[in-house]
């Protein structure tokens, strides 16, 4: 019986897109244990996979090959330890394909920590031991794009594997590390994640992501691509004094006046985004967490370019001028609160109550956590935030 569970998000390509056949676009590293390599089923599958990969402009190499700057995927068959270890040991690997792998507990634990690589698991229901281990490995993966195919193993799976790897590697977004200068001398490190179609001539709205006072832009590693996949560019910022933006000092040493100046980083970010040809500088927004939400609001409210503002677990009280901005309805507001945090949930309800924009929303959670910690507890939250920005900043 053929039991398919996958491909909720990956389009099945009847034809390979026309831009996928110009030279070696990506590389698959092959790691197959001895017994599995002698399996005629594997030999047939490998041959079919090689043909499919070449159609996408990829190639198969062994693990001793020199890996250049091309995107890398790994395919493993058999024991699976080598393939999992290779992927876990290489931050540049973005996709791992496990074909009928009998994973050990150690390999499953490695997969559970391997957030940089999506895992695509092929398991044959006839291999009962492998099926259980494969499922455990699949469920352990923290990557949103990980998937599993439970099906009789044959060459018909090769096109699916090639399409999945290509989809993972050509995920429709463009990531660029940038440094944004401020008028007072800070160099702000940031990741700019832009929808791929914005590079093809379209312009995208953009959101500046402001982390909390104890963290840095890395807390947006999942949210930023989700925004870009919905057509909204994301600028994940290390605001002054945090992360890589410490050329003039550290946030923890700031006086109150210096802390207040963090709001200026929003303006500098807006100016930078407006200078980019692929960004629509009239449709900008901010998402801020805790202290970052307060600085974000101070920088965004009053700037005519702001069309959307999201605040998570913020302790921010609106100034009169900021209230008036919300009452005009020009800015949509998303307030994300945790009810047990009485100070911040009260402040956020007050902010939400001032907004007259029909896209404004209030989300309240029963847990008493702060900021990005909510992302860990509620897997739907980041997609919901991305959906909200796509609507609020839509054309």
């Amino acid at each position, binding site marked *: 019986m053929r039991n398919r569970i996958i491909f909720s998000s990956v389009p099945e390509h009847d034809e390979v897109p026309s831009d996928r056949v110009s030279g070696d676009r990506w590389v698959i590293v092959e790691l197959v244990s001895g017994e599995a390599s002698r399996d005629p089923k594997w030999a047939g599958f490998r041959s079919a996979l090689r043909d499919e990969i070449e159609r996408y402009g990829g190639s198969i190499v062994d693990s001793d090959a020199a890996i250049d700057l091309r995107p890398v995927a790994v395919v493993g068959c058999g024991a699976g330890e080598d393939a999992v270890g290779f992927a876990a040991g290489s931050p540049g690997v973005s996709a791992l394909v496990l074909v009928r792998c009998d994973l050990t507990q150690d390999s499953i*634990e490695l997969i559970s920590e391997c957030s940089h690589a999506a895992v695509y698991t092929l398991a044959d229901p006839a291999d009962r031991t492998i099926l259980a281990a494969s499922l455990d490995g699949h469920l352990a993966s923290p990557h949103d794009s990980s998937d599993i195919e439970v099906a009789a193993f044959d060459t018909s799976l090769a096109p699916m594997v090639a399409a999945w790897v290509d989809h993972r590697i050509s995920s429709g977004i463009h990531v660029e590390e940038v440094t944004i200068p401020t008028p007072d001398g800070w160099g702000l490190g940031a990741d700019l994640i832009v929808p791929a179609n914005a590079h093809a001539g379209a312009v995208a709205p953009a959101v500046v992501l402001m982390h909390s006072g104890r963290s840095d832009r890395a807390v947006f590693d999942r949210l930023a691509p989700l925004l870009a996949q919905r057509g909204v560019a994301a600028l994940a910022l290390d605001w002054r004094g945090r992360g890589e933006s410490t050329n003039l000092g550290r946030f923890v040493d700031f006086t109150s006046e210096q802390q207040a100046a963090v709001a200026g980083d929003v303006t500098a970010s807006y100016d930078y985004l407006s200078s980019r040809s692929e960004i629509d500088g009239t449709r900008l927004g901010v998402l801020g967490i805790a202290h970052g939400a307060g600085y974000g609001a101070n920088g965004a409210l009053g700037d005519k370019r702001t069309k959307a503002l999201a605040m998570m677990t913020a302790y921010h*009280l609106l100034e009169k001028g900021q209230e008036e901005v919300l009452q005009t309805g020009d800015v949509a507001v998303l307030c994300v609160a945790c009810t*047990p945090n009485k100070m911040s949930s009260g402040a956020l309800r007050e902010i939400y109550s001032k907004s007259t924009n029909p896209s404004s929303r209030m989300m309240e959670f029963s847990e008493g956590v702060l900021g990005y910690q909510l992302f860990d507890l509620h897997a739907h939250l980041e997609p919901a935030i991305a959906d909200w920005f796509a609507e609020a900043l839509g054309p």
Partner: protein
Amino acid sequence: MSDLAPIVPNKDDEVVTFEATDGWQLSGVLRLPLPARLDTGARVMGAVLVPGSHHEQDTFVYGLGVPDVLAEHGIASIRFDIRGRGESRSPRSWRQLSTLERRRVADDVAAAADLLRTRVGITDASVAVISEQDTARSAALAAAGDPLVGALVMLSPRLDRSTLEALAARRLPTYVMVSKEDRRSLHDGTHAYLAGDERSELDVFSGLGFGATMFMSRSFEQPDEAPLQVMLAEWVQRTL
């Protein structure tokens, strides 16, 4: 918005740089309370503060003052940036490290414990390792493998089977602080507590969030309750 006061340099603080066994350069701050600085012969305990991967060494200081509270209880401390974070970001940042490279934070913890022992003159098991969230795994493995570590504190720990096995084999005194809405840490932390010896303690809170930020939430939302910093320091003092 409630601004936090800037960190005021403490006269007993000393910026230190040190090396993990694989040569990775680490940066931190030693806090040596009076008996340790004067070499009075009085017994001094020590604590290694290990931030989670989203945080830097200042996370235990900024608005929390954990080294101050430890020092008040006669406990010297070292706080440091794990590899890839803060001042320990060269040659690569945390996000550029692979899963296996991230596990080497255990080496960072071991090196920090060695430095602390050397500077304070600790020769017995009078060092505690205090960690939070994801790096609790590496911190716990370092503690389990170091006979001179006498206590383990974990805030909202994220652990795995092999770490729990190592803790069960060592049976260290273990203090776990977790807030119950953090279900994964509640599970892992409870098993870590069960793996510890009879001096181990488990405190399950409600509505405080994750890691070191639980201390902040406690002071904001439950100001009439005992500060978590004090509970932590008292347990370490009692246990060591």
